């Protein structure tokens, strides 16, 4: 069970990283002068029509997703008995987030023709969270031989 424990801890840490990136992107959305960019394309991406959905910055959706994943990681640590439903919810959210993030990256490359390093960073975090949720399900499957599936230190 130690592997599951590590996976949940990694999900927790990645969610924190995602919240930091997402919060920064929300901030610069409203104050573009605060944008620090090494790729030269962040401004174009942030001011493009794809940066908002119905006037809501896309970064708010991303940050909300990371907050949810953080709460799910905490929930799985505190309530191991709810491991399966919470992991299923985590898997569902990260599948959708990964698909949306892949679409946004495609837009950056082929529609906006500019790359925003912060957006790429967020896309990488989302991909890793998705991979972790798959590994969580694999770990749960392998643990099916045990009588009780809980997170416990060895």
């Amino acid at each position, binding site marked *: 069970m130690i592997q599951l424990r590590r996976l949940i801890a990694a999900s927790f840490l990645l969610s924190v990283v995602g919240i930091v990136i997402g919060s920064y992107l929300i901030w610069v959305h409203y104050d573009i002068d605060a944008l620090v960019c090494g790729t030269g394309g962040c401004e174009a991406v942030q001011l493009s029509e794809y940066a908002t959905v119905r006037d809501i910055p896309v970064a708010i959706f991303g940050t909300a997703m990371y907050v949810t994943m953080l709460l799910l990681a905490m929930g799985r640590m505190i309530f191991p008995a709810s491991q399966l439903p919470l992991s299923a919810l985590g898997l*569902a959210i990260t599948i959708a987030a990964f698909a949306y993030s892949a679409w946004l990256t495609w837009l950056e490359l082929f529609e*906006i023709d500019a790359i925003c390093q912060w957006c790429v960073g967020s896309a990488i975090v989302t991909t890793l969270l998705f991979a972790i949720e798959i590994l969580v399900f694999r770990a749960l499957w392998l643990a099916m031989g045990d009588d009780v599936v809980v997170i416990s230190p060895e």
Partner: protein
Amino acid sequence: MSETNSRKRQPKSQRRSTRQASARKRARQRTLLIWAGGAIGLAVILILGLVFITGDDDGEPETNPAESVALYQDIQSDGRFLGDPEAPVEFVIYSDFQCPVCKRFDTQDFPAVIDNFVKTGDVRVEWRPMPIISGFEDIPLEDPDNESVQAAEAAMCAADQDQFWPYSEALFTAQGAENSSTYTDEMLKQTALDLELDTEAFNTCLDSGEKQRKVLDLRQDGLDRGVKGTPTFLINDQLVSYTREGFDRLEQQFNDALDGKLVEK
């Protein structure tokens, strides 16, 4: 010793216990698969929801060239300038026809600037070229394939005939992906023809490259003033950035300038 023999020697109760454990394992795995299937189903619903809300908000409004040209009618224009020369506020726009954010400003915010401040005689607009997009692909400024410079030169040629603003609208309307050969020599000349410019004068102006020096000088002047991207503005010589608030921010800045206050960046 064969496995069959060993199983034969297992007591009945132990065999039953093994069967029960195996059944329990299968049941748990079935439960796991059901939850995984539910997760995938929920993911599909979430993706469809995202497609629905983003699909319904598919970007900027379509530009109607006829409406755009009509926007400038009955307003005093002189070359790259638009509005009353005596207007108290001078509004300079640095832009690149290849820049998608410039198009966004042009279609979503500029009409409100014209209606609320230019037509009232409060603001006079000046356009200045800031060709930078082709530079992202290291295309030299003097290269005929530098579409940012070529489009700016063509717009300056149209300005000679006091047709800068309709020509500018037409270029933004036609905007394609950056450096995708949208603003070719042929396209720039065809646009002049479509807008019923004096094509002989326009083509001579474009072919001679006589506007290149002016375009590059204005570009350098902008860079010297601290312009780092497009669009960027000057309001009474104060450098201001384009923000997501678009017209709302500009409106406040114009009002500050009209009140004689220092315009906030």
